[in-house]
């Protein structure tokens, strides 16, 4: 069985690899390495630009997930598609439940539960078919999601970062469960960047980096350190150096914050003037919550946030902006811009609260010249028409607009989440340069990014987030990407990861 996907898009470049029947095949790579794109192609959610897939030696080009399902391919997404208010069995059987219809069109619950229970038993799991989904812990829900796929007799199961949502002590159960799937004679693709788990589970490992396959290896031929190196890339081009304008005063101090849901736990750090502080980590380890905590849209359970000495914990977003905070969100279309509105209207947002365009009446000339200066400074390509709807811009131009608007606040502290996600090299450079200019004025920047190269080239100091905690801190120039990648993937430093020494 072999598959080949070259893809004209940036996401994947001439990627080829093969998966053997009956193996657990891990695909590892950083965020944005192209793992999800690859799997979505395989599952018929995205069409490849070029290339082909051979499935059991037959050409296979699914146009719709149903075609993939018919061939026995099943995919478990990171985001569950389970219906909360119905039972495990109902979720699993949904769409096929009329098989169990008895007289009066009643769904025969017992027959349905029995058929699901037999599958559960074969996997030696402890789930009751009659439990409601909303009464189950996340780990069980995940298993239900996988059962759904197995129930449809999939022989080829794709698990997209299945352990991201699991607590450490739940992971071993889960891995045992996946091994059970292999024992049923099924093929499993396991996507993860937690190398401990990968090594405990997989037969073979394919490493993806920036849309390229670095290689496929038998687990016995490689060790975790070398995989981490290949995954993150030690041969990082360190042509960029962090700016050198560190002051002494602290501009932002975060003291032991935890959020209500417990995603970030007891996080403390100081940001000095002229400093870029990088938060490295694989996605889903508390980055979004950190951003929201700073922005003021997340309820804190404990801790305090102080901006230049005074607490901002109890302030709302507007008051925090007034105090000198600027925010680059990681979701430009959903949270950072109003896509249906014009460039001018998007540039004005927030700034209008500072009286830049008049207190009551919008001074059109001011708004225009303000917008035009952002458009010019940040090279936003919009055909000279600032009345264009933002939706019509490319992703890179949207991002430059967003960055330009936030830096135009001349903030004391800029919080930037994934500021260059999905943008081209030129835009990336431009955005990085704008951060450098900003810190020269004495401001501080919090750079939350899944892109280690970006952080190492830009940040004076790096904190690695793993499961919502700061697991290590490094200072320029003592960066060791290999070390960082160990921390990011939980090989080192994770106090509660049982797989770090297995």
């Amino acid at each position, binding site marked *: 069985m072999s598959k080949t996907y070259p893809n004209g898009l940036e996401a994947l470049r001439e990627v080829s690899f093969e998966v053997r029947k009956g193996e657990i095949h891990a695909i590892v790579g950083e965020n944005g390495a192209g793992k999800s794109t690859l799997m979505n192609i395989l599952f018929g959610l995205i069409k490849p630009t070029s290339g082909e897939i051979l499935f059991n030696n037959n050409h296979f080009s699914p146009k719709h*997930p149903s075609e993939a399902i018919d061939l026995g391919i099943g995919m478990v997404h990171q985001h569950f*598609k389970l*219906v*909360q*208010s119905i039972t495990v069995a109902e979720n699993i059987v*949904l*769409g*096929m439940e009329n098989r169990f*219809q008895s007289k009066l069109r009643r*769904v025969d619950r017992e027959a349905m539960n029995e058929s699901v229970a037999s599958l559960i038993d074969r996997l030696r799991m402890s789930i009751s078919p009659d439990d409601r989904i909303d009464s189950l812990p996340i780990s069980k829900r995940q298993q239900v999601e996988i059962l759904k796929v197995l129930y449809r007799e999939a022989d080829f199961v794709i698990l997209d970062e299945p352990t991201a949502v699991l607590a450490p002590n739940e992971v071993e159960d889960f891995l045992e469960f996946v091994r059970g799937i292999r024992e049923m004679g099924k093929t499993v693709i396991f996507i993860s960047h937690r190398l401990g788990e990968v090594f405990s589970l997989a037969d073979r490992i394919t490493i993806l980096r920036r849309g390229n396959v670095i290689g496929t290896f038998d687990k016995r031929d490689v060790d975790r350190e070398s995989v981490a190196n290949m995954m993150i890339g030690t041969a990082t081009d360190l042509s960029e150096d962090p700016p050198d304008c560190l002051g002494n005063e602290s501009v932002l101090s975060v003291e032991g914050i935890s959020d209500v849901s417990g995603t970030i736990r007891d996080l403390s750090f100081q940001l000095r003037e002229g400093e870029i502080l990088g938060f490295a980590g694989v996605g889903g380890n508390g980055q979004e919550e950190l951003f929201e905590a700073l922005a003021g849209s997340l309820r804190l359970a404990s801790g305090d946030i102080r901006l230049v000495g005074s607490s901002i914990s109890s302030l709302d977003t507007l008051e925090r902006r007034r105090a000198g905070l600027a925010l680059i969100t990681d979701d430009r279309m959903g949270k950072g811009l109003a896509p249906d509105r014009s460039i001018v209207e998007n540039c004005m947002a927030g700034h209008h609260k500072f009286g830049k365009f008049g207190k009551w009446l919008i001074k059109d000339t001011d708004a225009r010249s303000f917008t035009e200066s952002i458009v010019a400074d940040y090279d936003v390509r919009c055909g000279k028409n600032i009345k264009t709807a933002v939706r019509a811009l490319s992703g890179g131009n949207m991002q430059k607009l967003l960055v330009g608007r936030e830096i135009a606040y001349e903030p004391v502290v800029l919080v930037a989440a994934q500021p260059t996600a999905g943008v081209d090299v030129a835009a990336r450079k431009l955005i990085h340069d704008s951060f450098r200019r900003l810190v020269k004025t004495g401001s501080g920047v919090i750079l939350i990014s899944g892109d280690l190269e970006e952080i190492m080239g830009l940040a004076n100091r790096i904190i690695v987030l793993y499961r919502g905690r700061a697991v290590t801190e490094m200072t320029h120039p003592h960066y060791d990407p290999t070390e960082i990648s160990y921390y990011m993937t939980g090989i080192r430093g994770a106090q509660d990861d049982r797989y770090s020494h297995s």
Partner: protein
Amino acid sequence: MDIELITTLFRTSIRMATPILLASLGGALTYHAGIINVAMEGLMLISAFFSVVFSYLTGSAFYGIIAGVVASMLISLLYSVFVSFLKANNFAIGFAINILISSLTLFLMRVMFQGKNAFNSPDIASIMELKVKTGNYFLDNYLLNFSILTYLSIAIAFLLAYIIYKTSFGLRLRVCGEMPQALTAAGIKVGVIQLWASILCGGLCGLAGAQLSLYNVRMFSRDMTGGRGFVALAAILISGGKPKRVLFISLLFGLFDALSVKLQNEKIAPQFALMLPYIMSVVVLLLFHLKTRKQYGKA
């Protein structure tokens, strides 16, 4: 208290609750399918009109009810096509339909009967009652001799509880409202489920309209549904679309209606009596939201 008074109040409550119950049961179906149905007002009104017309023309309440139900189902089908397939905003279309029917019924009444704001005639056949005289006061007044639609509506409440929670269609219906992606992933078309829910809703609102115009008053008058479609909507929102709770809340709203009727003969200004059902539906909705907010607070 006077036993006669309680009896009258009870019977009026049941009479007034029946159309609200039928409509909210219908709306509960679309609610589960993910559509907040604001067209129920119009559906009831068109049915009330055609029920009267056909009852008058044929002399049979049965044909009247059938005509009302068919008219209501057709309009509901139209609503569903707009909402589920043309993806139009359900509030916008719902209100456009309500207003259309409000003026259409008035227009048709003028064209067909030259009536001014109401049409009544002794030739309009009324919906039958389950007329049994056992001689037992309690049985005769509290269990028997209601409109047959009242018995039917209670039966439908239990039937819907069965359909929604026990059958394959019900499962798909609930999934449709809660997580349509799961349905699509299982290869089932969301629009089709919504369409069926809407048609059934149309049928039930049709019965509700017939009960209003062929039993509760036996005439058609301009905008005679008087916001009951929205009282029903409030009942659905409060009950979360659960048929047995809908039954209970409809009876409560029926009681307010009955009190309103009763109070109109008392010393207080009749306007306050007429206001009562609307105020109470807001108050009940308010209490419900206050309670759920507390629960959220705890969680």
